[in-house]
């Protein structure tokens, strides 16, 4: 049994999945093809319906 996990995609979903797995004590490899994680949310200004800033 390999005790590590692979998450492909470093947007909000990938980050959440990776954090959950990491908090459970597992080692996670988070693969992202852009130079930084953040995905689409990093490009947004604010998010509905709270109008919080997206970063």
């Amino acid at each position: 049994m390999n005790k590590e996990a692979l998450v492909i995609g470093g947007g909000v979903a990938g980050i959440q999945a990776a954090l959950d797995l990491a908090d459970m004590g597992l080692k996670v490899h988070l693969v992202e093809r852009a130079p930084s994680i953040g995905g689409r949310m990093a490009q947004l200004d604010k998010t509905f319906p709270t109008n919080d800033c997206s970063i």
Partner: protein
Amino acid sequence: MMDAGRHPNIELLTLSEVMDLEGEAGRFTATVVKHPRYVDESRCTACGDCLAKCPYKAEDDFNLGLEKRKAIYVYFPQGVPSCATIDREACQYFKTGKCKVCEKVCNREAVNFEERDREIRLDVGAVIVATGFEPYPAGKVTQFGFGKYPNVLTSMQFERMSNATGPTGGKLVRPSDGRHVKRIAFLQCVGSRDARHKRFCSAVCCMHSTKEAMVAREHDHEVESFIFYTDMRAAGKGFQEYIERAVSDYGVKYVRARAGEVSQDEEKNPVIWFENIDEKRVEAMVVDMCVLATSLVPSAGTEGLANALGIELDEYGFFATDPFSPVESSRPGVFVCGYAEAPLDIPESVAQASGAAGKAAEIIFGAPNLVKSERSG
């Protein structure tokens, strides 16, 4: 983002792609290629000295073509890892062997032109796919003039414009003449619910155009926004009230019409042609800027990734899942979440991501009860 970058259990592999996945649930081996950044991630602190001096420019993907960036660049200021990257295609050194100004200027000795693709093999128990979406190319929906008319933008471009760290420092100005925008038309369903382009509904665009119209009014109290829609998709928690607030507090006007065409007048003002259903006639509305809420489709490379991972896509191009097992792909041990699975907003994506993590953990922890679970009787 910061939490992921800092967590001791998470290893970030940016500028990386998964090429292959062998094995089975519990015992996979993934082949990942890490492309060269040409900058040492352990040394660079994104101080900005290199990009200040770099003489060469390229299209800025992050800002969706609204401005240019240097050949050595920081993807976005708050990025994780906080590190510069060299765009090989734009870099003069890679073309002619000359320049290397960045290397000279860097006082951390972080620039390394010798980096190469690196193959990494990872032994993992489970895989989660969360590759998200990209906007459908607005230029394909030719009747709206994207690419032809400078003041016709996509929603994502509008986001970059309204963002204080974006190319215009948060000012809503027309690309053609830099004039402040006072009248905006948002066109919904551009390429969506459209037999010629994408049949499905992208679920989030009605809400994000509403948000953008509200943000526009926050930037400038004189801004008038018109949202041309077919059905307002506002079925999430608090969404209906949000729309009502947009109308009552932000003066957003909703026009039930699918715009037929966008043209342009001599001052490069977009002209929206639509059918006024109540008056039963075709009308033309002149605006300063037209924002296209395009269809949002699975990210580029989804097909290739599906092949590499040995999982199926559905007829719409999303990773295929059973409606009642929404995070399980067609291959045991490989899970899917977020927009890569179906048009989902942030709370749904985050919930699915946690769900996929739980499923993945089940496999990795060995799901002990699977072995001793059968009850007698």
